[in-house]
Every structure is written in C-alpha cells, then in structure tokens.
C-alpha cells in the first residue's frame, strides 16, 4: 500500500474521532453550565482547553456557550473545530478515495455536505440536535467501516489513528478537569462537585456504563480509574492502547517486521496493567497525564517513520 494512503487513512480516522469527541465535550459544557452554581465561563474554558483550542480565545475574551459553539463547531479557521475536522477528514478521504468503501465515503461525504450547510443560527437554536447529528455521523462512518471494510492493512491504519486520537482526547479531557478529581476536593464533597465529576462521564457518553460497573460510587478515584485503567471502557486509556497494540500487531504480522512503535505500545500497555489508581494520584495525576500525552506524540512519530510517511 502507498505510504500516502496509510497516512491519509490514519489522519482521516484521527480527525473524525476528534470531531466526535469535540461534540461530546460541548455537550458536557452545556450540561455543566446548566447546573446550579455553575461558574459558566470557567466551565466553558475547560471545554475549550480540552478540545485543544485554548489558543482561539484570549484571557480577556468572553467564553460562553455562544462563543464556544461558534468557535468549536463552525469556525473553519479554528483547526480544532468540528467543521475543520470534517474538512480535513474529507480531504484525506478524497485523496484516498479508492481505499475507502462506497459506504464509508458516502457516509463521510453526506456528513460533510450537511455540516457545510449548517448555519450559526441553527446551532444556536437547537444545539442538542446539532450535537446529536454530529455524533451520529461519526457513528455512521465507524459502522460503515466495521461492516464494509476489508480487514487488511487499510483497516489497521484506520484503527490505529482512531485509537491514538481517542486516547489523546481522553487524556486532554482529564487534564483540563483534573483539579476536580483531586482527592482533596473529595473531602468537600457536595452535590456540585459530584455533578462536575459526572460531567466527565457525560463527555465520554459513559454515565450508564459507569453506573453499571461501579454501582453508583461516583468518587474521583473510581472515575479516574474508569477513564484510565478500565480496559473494558472504549474511551479509557487502557482500552485505546489495547486497540492500538492490536492494530499495530496485525501490521507487524502482515509485514513480518516489528519496529520501534511496536515496542513502545507494548510497554505502554504493560505499564498500565501494573498500575493502581492510588499510585497515580500519589505521583501526581497531572504529571501522569502529561507523560501519557508525550507518549502518544512519540507513538504517532514512530508509527509514521515505521511506515514511511
């Protein structure tokens, strides 16, 4: 397969994953801003930070729902906006049309066309419906890939991109909100803190799943455990690294060659298996998250070197 094709598939998956995660983040912000005693601006700032779009706002700018939605949904000049992500995903898809199945292309192209016609007024009037639509577009694409794509090298590069980006988004989400998870704040447990933790689960569409696993114990340790170490939760770091390891492992078998990225992802998976949440808190959650983000960047670089893109 052409290296450029691998590169485009990898990035297309990343952009779509990012678009979906951003939609969920905005949904989280919307819920938090409706809570009694919400600071409003502060909540929206954390959304912007987690979406990696902090640079789009100055420290004196007003950061409310309207501003965030404008910037993160429709603003083509903000590379983290959902529209920009869809543009980039589609450009990558267009460059490798032949590597996609018709269902995948049509799903993506339909979504891109719809998003191109969405107006700021529509978003303002009906934000929840807009966000739902964006998430369903992403689900449609992923579903089309699941059911129509050959399980060959193309699928492996697509999965690798999706898992890496999802790991990145989870880490950034946690990093933007890590202060609400620090155990000390648990001492001052009140309803508002509880809601703020739960909002993290909303941002990953996982409230019910969490409830199912932890029986309603919404403690910071449990939530952090869920999002970092629980290998069953599809947005957790452990799950994403597992998926990445599997995708890279298939490539290694296919090409009969193991490279740096394989060793790195193996090590990352093993390290998470041995960790306890308490240790991570003891060593510093923020440091842990930064370290993991650096590891992701390294993995991305090693992967592109290994496959010549």
């Amino acid at each position: 397969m052409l290296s450029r094709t691998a590169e485009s598939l990898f990035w297309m998956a990343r952009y779509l994953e990012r678009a979906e995660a951003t939609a969920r983040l905005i949904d989280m912000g919307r819920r938090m801003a409706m809570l009694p005693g919400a600071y409003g601006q502060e909540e929206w700032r954390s959304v912007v930070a987690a979406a990696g779009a902090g640079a789009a706002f100055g420290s004196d700018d007003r950061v409310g729902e309207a501003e965030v939605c404008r910037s993160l949904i429709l603003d083509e000049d903000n590379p983290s906006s959902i529209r920009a992500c869809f543009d980039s995903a589609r450009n990558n898809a267009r460059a490798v049309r032949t590597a996609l199945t018709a269902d995948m292309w049509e799903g993506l192209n339909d979504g891109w066309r719809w998003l191109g016609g969405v107006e700021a007024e529509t978003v303002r009037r009906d934000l929840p419906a807009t966000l739902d639509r964006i998430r369903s577009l992403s689900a449609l694409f992923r579903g089309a890939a699941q059911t129509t794509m050959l399980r060959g090298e193309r699928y492996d590069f697509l999965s690798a991109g999706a898992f890496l980006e999802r790991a990145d988004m989870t880490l950034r989400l946690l990093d933007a909100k890590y202060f609400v998870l620090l155990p000390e704040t648990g001492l001052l447990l009140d309803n508002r803190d509880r809601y703020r933790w739960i909002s993290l689960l909303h941002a990953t569409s996982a409230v019910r799943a969490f409830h199912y696993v932890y029986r309603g114990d919404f403690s910071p340790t449990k939530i952090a455990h869920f999002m970092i170490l629980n290998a069953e939760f599809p947005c957790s770091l452990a799950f994403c690294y597992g998926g990445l390891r599997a995708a890279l492992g298939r490539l290694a078998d296919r090409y009969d060659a193991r490279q740096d990225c394989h060793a790195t992802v193996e090590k990352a998976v093993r390290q998470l298996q041995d960790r306890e949440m308490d240790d991570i808190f003891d060593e510093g959650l923020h440091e842990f998250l930064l370290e993991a983000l650096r590891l992701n960047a390294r993995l991305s670089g090693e992967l592109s070197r290994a496959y010549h893109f």
Partner: protein
Amino acid sequence: MFDEMTGDGAEVRAPYSDIAAWIEASGIDALRRHTAEAEAIFRRIGITFAVYDEGGDPERLIPFDLIPRVFAAAEWRRLERGIRQRALALNAFLQDVYHRGEILRAGIVPERLVYRNAAFEPAMIGVDPPGRVYSHVVGIDIVRTGEQEFQVLEDNCRTPSGVSYMLENRECMMRTCPELFRGGDIEPVDVYPEELRRTLEEVAPPACDGDPVIALLTPGPFNSAYYEHSFLADLMGIELVEPQDLFVDEGLCWMRTTQGPERVDVLYRRIDDAFLDPISFRPDSMLGVPGLFDAYRAGGVTLCSAPGSGVADDKEVYVYVPEMIRFYLGQEPILQNVPTWRCSHDEERTYVLERLDELVVKEVHGSGGYGMLIGPHSTAAERTAFAEKIRRDPEGYIAQPTLELSSSPSLAEGGVAGRHVDFRPYCLIGRTIRLVPGGLTRVALREGSLVVNSSQGGGVKDTWVLAE
C-alpha cells in the same frame, strides 16, 4: 436540422422507438423525478467536476440529462471503423514525426506545424515506445449533421477525460429507469476498465519480467478530473499515485509503500507532459518525478500516453488527419473532417475575416470551449475584437463553418425538447485496438446553444449502442 429521434421530419426513427414510447408513457413529472433521483445519486457518490477560479461551488455537478442518446447497430459499425482508422493513423503519425518524418519529407504536413509546435517533444526523437504506441487512449469528438453525416470536430491524443461519465451515466440510468433495460438489447459499457487495464498491460516495458504493476498518476485531489482518476484506478484495481509517491532509482520507477519501495512498470498518467519530470521537461517546476523520462527512454517504465503525443491533436494538425489516413494506411477516411480554414494562410485568413459572422473561430491550442467566437451568436463588437486577435496572431486561430449539430430529445424547462449534442468515444490502443460500444454524449442544455462543454452549461447523457 437533424434530430436524433425524429430525423428531418416528424417520424420517430427506428432506434428511438423504445425511447419515444417511454417518454410518452412516463410523462414529464416522472422524468423530472427520475432526474432528481439521478442527481442525488451523483452528488452522493461525489461525482463532481471541479471548476476553480470562477467562484461558486468549486465542486460542481455536471447536469445529467435523463433521456439517452441512441445509435443503431449499423450506425455504430460505421463509426467504429472510422474511429479505429483514425486512432491508428494518429499513432502512425506520432511514430513517424519522432523518427524519419516521412510525411513531412513528402510535403504533406508542413514541418512548421510539427517542429514549431509547443507540444512537440524533441527528447522523444528516436525513442521507441513499447508496441510503438504513443497515444493509448484516443478520444475523438464527433458531431452529426444528418442521417449519414458524421464529422470529426477534434482529436484528443493526450489524456482525454470524461469516460467516467460514460460509465456512471449508464449505472445511474440502470438504477433509476431499470424498465428501459429489460429488453437486453443495449450493449454494455462496463467492460471499459477491464479493457483499459489489458491495454496498459500490453505495453509493459522491456525491463518488466513478471506481471506488470500498473498505476494511475494523478496531479491530485484538486485536479478537475480527480474523481475520474480515482474511479478508474478503483475499477482497475491499481494504485492511484501522485508524483510525490514515486521516485526513480537505477533506471526503474518505484512507489513509496508502507513496506518500502515497490516497482511500477506502467504509468497511466493523467498529468501534463510539463509536470512529468522536472529534469527533462521543466527545470523550474517542483512538480513531477525527477528522472522519470530517462527511465522511460531506457525501457524501465512505460508512460501512457507517451510524452509529446499532443503534437498530433492540435487544431491545425487536425486539418491533415485525412491525409495521414491516406498516407499511412492507404485507405480513404471513413469519418470526415469539418472543413477548416487556417488563419496562418493569407488567402484563408482573408476568407475568415470576411465571414466572421457565419464561422466559428477557435484558438489552435485552446480547449474547453473557451476563447472561441461563434459567429452567428456574436455581437459586432465581439467580432471586431476577434478580428484584431486574428490579425495579431494568425497562427493561433482556425475557423470552421457553424455546424448545425444534431439535436437529441432532452428534458428542458418547458418539457422534452431537442438540444444539440456531440459524442466522444474512447478508443484504446495497445498491441490490439479496443473500442467499447458507447462513449460520452455531451449536450448543450441552453436552448439553441452549440457549446457542449461542461464548463459552459453543458450536460451529459447516457449513450446507447443497440445490439444487432
């Protein structure tokens, strides 16, 4: 004026009997509904045509007209012989001008037209492409002016586009109007990608020692025909490569893959000569694959079409194609040329300047329907301006009579009405010649318009060749 459905009178011609009955039975509303369905399909699969620098939607849809254009079996037999003959003669001409130049020595084609032609590629002199084929896909633009009168308007020897519309129009017709195909007497066109692939395999270079690896070389997603490039690559099951995916090493061409370099034997290139190889063709260009031409010349890779093929298809060389057919094949041309006046000749120029209001004047190197003057539809001011252009650069222009292109029933605002059409078949030349029964019919959707180019309000139709 000749109408494809009713000829010169009001009787429905035999090949159109099914179509006429279908139009009648469907009614205008159903036809419009099917058209909307068809357009939705095109838009959905992303069959768009990129038009940049004009504002508006950069990815436009070529309007699709639902009512097919039909050739009877006998009509096609004659067209086919004419098309094959012409494609052979054009290749023989290319082989000749890059070798001994017999036709120039014989004084049949003026040397100036070849050696001073911008498309002439001196580096090709003495090069022997595999199978002595230069132009592997010849697109011939044909118009009809009467029951028996087919005329060639133009040849395309470089990289003619539009074949994806031939395939998709048919696919779309079969999806939206399946009842039309029940009789099974319409020749299928979907073998084209397979035929193209075989053609390309047949011209593998001497250095190829196994199954040839073929790739389609595209300038990239921003090219107006990119959809077609990806579509054809997909249907042929070959890689779609951009120049940056390729490199030349030890006289062979390689593509960069996830497992390291892989050999490429045949490149179906949909990229202009100037952007093939910055070393050989355009030193100031950053585009292209350095060393590609040397690898080609050494037999390490085959380029389809060969660099320099454009010398056979400009509008002034066109005038001599009937002579080429006589000279190389010893046959009389089956398809006629449109009478053409060359403004480079004093007498002919005088004739043209006196009749600007009747003639169509075209730029010798123009394409896409731009830069032309359609006399009967022009204003006095436009004619004055054009006369000035011709006097300033006589070699840059030719003129032809304004042809009464045949019309074909089309879906217009007020109902079904005749609109002017042309026709482009795609002839494939490898070790053998292949021609899929069909081609692209373009239609000038504006009432009375003679310009069928998609960049100027033209649309496309499905084209049927009826089985014997």
